[in-house]
C-alpha cells in the first residue's frame, strides 16, 4: 500500500513540473505587464524599467523560472507583486474558505444526488424518472453565477433571511459563518446535484440489469435491500470517481461563486492575480491547484477498495 502511495506521488512530480513550466510560460505570453497595471495611465518607461528591475522581472525568463522553481521546491512560492504578501500563506488562508464551502457543498450534493439517481434508475421510464432527469438537466444547464444571483436576490435581498455579502470564519462565530456560507453552498449544491444525479442514475441502470441483481430478487430480497446492499456498492464507484473530479475542480477555486457572494476564496485570488498580472501569485495558485487535484484524486483512488474489493486485489 505504501509502495503504491509513493509510486502515485512520484508519478505526480513530472505532472507538477510540467504544470509549473506551462503556467510560467503561458502567463508571460499573455500581453500585459504587472508593473504597467500597477502604474496605470501614468506609467512612463523609466519608472516601468526601474520597477521591473526592482521586482526581478528584467532577468532572463529561464533564470526567473529556475529561481522560482528552486524556491518553490523548498515551499517558498515568493511574494505577491501586488501587495508584497507571502504567496503560500496567502493561498492557504484563501484555500481554507474555498475548501470549507466546497467540501460541505459536494458532500450535501452527493447525499442528495446519489439516492435521487438510484430512485430514478429504479423507477426507470416512470414519471419519477422523467421528473428527476428533467430537474437534473435543468440544474446542469443553469450557470452558477445566474443561480447565485437569483438566490442572493430572493433569500438575501427580498426575504432578508441571510446576509448578502461577506464571510466570517467558523472559528470567530460559527452561527454567523453558517449564515454567510448558506447561499454559496446552496448554489454549488444545486449546480452539482445535476451532474451527480445523472451519473448515479446511469450507473445504477447498468447495475440493475446485471444477473446478480435478478438473482438477489429471485432469492426474495426486498427492493430496499436490492438497492442498498447489492446495487449501491457497484453503482457508486463511477459516481465516486466523478465526485473526486468535481471536488478537485471546485477546490481549485470557485471564482464565479466567490465573486457573486464576495467570498475571499482561492478562485477570486487567482482571478484578481490574473487581472493584475501578478506572476508569483498566479504561478503559486495554479501549482497549488494542481497539487490539490492530484491529492484529491489519489485519495479517491485509495478509497475504491471500500466499494469494490476487486480493486484492492488488483
Amino acid at each position, binding site marked *: 500500500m505504501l509502495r503504491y502511495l509513493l509510486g502515485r506521488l512520484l508519478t505526480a512530480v513530472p505532472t507538477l513540473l510540467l504544470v509549473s513550466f506551462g503556467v510560467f510560460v503561458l502567463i508571460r505570453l*499573455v500581453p*500585459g505587464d504587472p508593473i504597467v497595471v500597477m502604474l496605470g495611465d501614468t506609467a512612463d518607461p*523609466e519608472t516601468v524599467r526601474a520597477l521591473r528591475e526592482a521586482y526581478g522581472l528584467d532577468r532572463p525568463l529561464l533564470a526567473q523560472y529556475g529561481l522560482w522553481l528552486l524556491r518553490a521546491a523548498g515551499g517558498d512560492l515568493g511574494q505577491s507583486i501586488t501587495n508584497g504578501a507571502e504567496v503560500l500563506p496567502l493561498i492557504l488562508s484563501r484555500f481554507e474558505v474555498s475548501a470549507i464551502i466546497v467540501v460541505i457543498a459536494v458532500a450535501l450534493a452527493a447525499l442528495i444526488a446519489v439516492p435521487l439517481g438510484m430512485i430514478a434508475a429504479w423507477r426507470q421510464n416512470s414519471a419519477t424518472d422523467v421528473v428527476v432527469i428533467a430537474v437534473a438537466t435543468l440544474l446542469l444547464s443553469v450557470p452558477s453565477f445566474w443561480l447565485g444571483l437569483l438566490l442572493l436576490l430572493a433569500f438575501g435581498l427580498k426575504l432578508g433571511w441571510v446576509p448578502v455579502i461577506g464571510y466570517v470564519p467558523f472559528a470567530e*462565530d460559527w452561527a454567523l459563518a453558517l449564515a454567510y456560507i448558506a447561499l454559496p453552498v446552496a448554489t454549488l449544491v444545486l449546480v452539482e446535484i445535476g451532474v451527480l444525479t445523472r451519473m448515479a442514475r446511469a450507473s445504477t441502470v447498468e447495475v440493475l440489469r446485471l444477473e446478480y441483481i435478478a438473482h438477489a430478487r429471485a432469492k426474495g430480497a426486498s427492493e430496499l435491500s436490492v438497492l442498498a446492499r447489492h446495487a449501491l456498492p457497484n453503482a457508486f464507484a463511477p459516481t465516486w470517481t466523478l465526485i473526486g473530479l468535481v471536488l478537485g475542480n471546485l477546490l481549485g477555486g470557485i471564482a464565479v461563486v466567490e465573486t457573486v457572494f*464576495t467570498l*475571499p476564496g482561492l478562485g*477570486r485570488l487567482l482571478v484578481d492575480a490574473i487581472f493584475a498580472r501578478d506572476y508569483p501569485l498566479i504561478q503559486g495558485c495554479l501549482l497549488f491547484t494542481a497539487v490539490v487535484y492530484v491529492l484529491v484524486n489519489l485519495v479517491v483512488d485509495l478509497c475504491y477498495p471500500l466499494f469494490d474489493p476487486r480493486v484492492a486485489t488488483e
Partner: protein
Amino acid sequence: MRKIGLLAVCASAAIGVALAGEAVRAETIRVAVNADIRSTYPGVNRDSNTDAVMHHIVEGLVAFTSDGSVAPSLAEKVETPDGGKTWVFTLRDGVTFHNGEPVTAEDVLFIWDKYLDEATKWRCYKDFAEGNAAVESIEKEDDRTVVFTLKQPSALFLGLMARIDCAAGAIVHEDSFAADGSWSAPIGTGPYKIGEWRQGEFIELEKFAGYKPRPEPRDGYAGARIAEADKVRFVVIPDGAATKAALLSGSIDVYPDISVNDVEEFKASQGVKVGIADTMNLSGILMQTTDPLLGKVKLREAIAHAIDTAGLVQVLTLGTAKPNNSPIPVVSAYHGKLQSALFSYDPERARKLAAEAGYKGETIKMLTTKRYQTAFDVAVIAQAMAKQAGINIELEVLEWATLLDKYLAGDYQMMSFLYSARLDPSLSFDMFSGPKAEQPRKVWDNPEAQALIEQSMRIADKGERETIFNRLEEMFRADVPMLVLYNGPDIAAYSDKLVGYEAWMAGTPRLWGVSTGK
C-alpha cells in the same frame, strides 16, 4: 419529520444570531470597494482604492479642495517669498499622530527624506527629485517651520504635493516603519486610524479621538475632517450586481461608483439616495499620429466632425455629464468659452475631409476594453457615428492589462481610453504631450506645445497661464491627436440614513463629516 423540524429551528436560530450580529455592527459605516487595497503604504504601493482608504488615515501639508485648488492641511499656512522657488510651511499647533506624538518639523524632514529616496518608490518621486518641482533642499527653521527650496521656481509645486495618488506627501510618524526601515503600518494624523485589515474581505478604520480639525468647513480633502462614525469599513465586493444587492439590503451604506444605467433604479429604490458630481477624469478617443492613415490631420479632423460629442455623451451618461472636447476639465477654473466649444457634428464635412485626406474606406482599428464599460460604449457609439460619415472603424476588445500595454507602446490606430484626474491644466496637457520617439505612450507630439506646457508649469500668474492654455487649446484642436469627449461624473448611491455624504470632484469616497444618523 421531527428531526427536520428541529433542523429548521436550529437553522433559524443560527440565522437569527447571525443577523443579530449584524445589528451590533450598525455603528460602522460600510463602504463598497471593487478590489482590495494594495498595501497600507500611502503613495507607494497603491491604486485608486488604496488612495481612497489611506486618505482617511493620513494627511499631507496641503490638500485639494473640491474645486481643485490647493489649501493648507497639516500646514497652518504656506508662503513663497520669492515667487515659487522657496516654500515656507508653518505647521499647525497641537496636531498629534495616532500614537499621541506631536507633529514637528523633524517628522516632515524624516518622511520627505524617505520620499526623495528612489528606493522608496514613492509615486511622485520623479516630480520632486528631477521634475518641474525638483527639490534642492528641505530645512527645518524651527519646530513648526519647514522650508522647501526648489531647483527652479514652480507653479505646480503645491498641486503636485497635494496629488491624491501620491497621498499628498503624507506625513507619518517614524514608527510607521520597522527597525530595518521597511514599511510597517501607517501612524498618521487623519481622522481615522487603521484597524483590522482582512485581505480580500475588508479594511476597517477606527475613529481617532485625538484628531485636531482645521477651523474651515470640510472642502474636498481639505478643511475640517471630523470622524463622526466610530468605524468605517471598506468592504471588498468585486461584482456590481452583488454590490447593488448589498446596498439595497442594507449590508453596505455606500456604493461609491455606480453605473450611470443604475441611477434611475437607485433613485426609485426606498432608503437610497444618489449623489452626482463632475470629476476631472477624462474619457476620449486617441488617434495614433504616426499611423500611415491617421497621420493625416484631415482624417483625424474628419473623425472629430463625424462624432456627435453632445449626442454621444447624452446617451452614455444620461445627462449626468457635460460634453467636453477640451483637455481642461469642465470644473476647472481655466475652462472658459474657448474650451466649451465643441467640434461641430457634420457628417458631410467629415466625408469631405476624409476624401481630401485620401481616405478610401480602409478599415481603422479601434482598441477598447470592457473593464470600464464606458470606454467600450464610447467605442461602439463612435464606430456607428463614424460609419455615417463613411469612416470604417473596426473594434477590438482587449482585457485592461493588454490595452494598457498597447497604450504604453503606442501600438494602436485608435483607442477608447480613460485618463485619471489631473487637477491642473498643465498636467492635463502634459499627460498626453511629449516626444513619441522617447515616450511612445504620448499622444500629442508637438515641440512647440511641449515648450508652452513647460512654461505654464513655471508661471504662477493666473492670467498668464490662461493665455498659454488658450493657445494650447487652439493648437490641440488644430492637431486633433485625440478627441476628448467628457469628464466622467462621480455617481454614488448611499443609504438615506447617512448624514453628510457627498460625491465630489475626485470621485473617491470621503467618510469624515459623515454619520449614520444615530
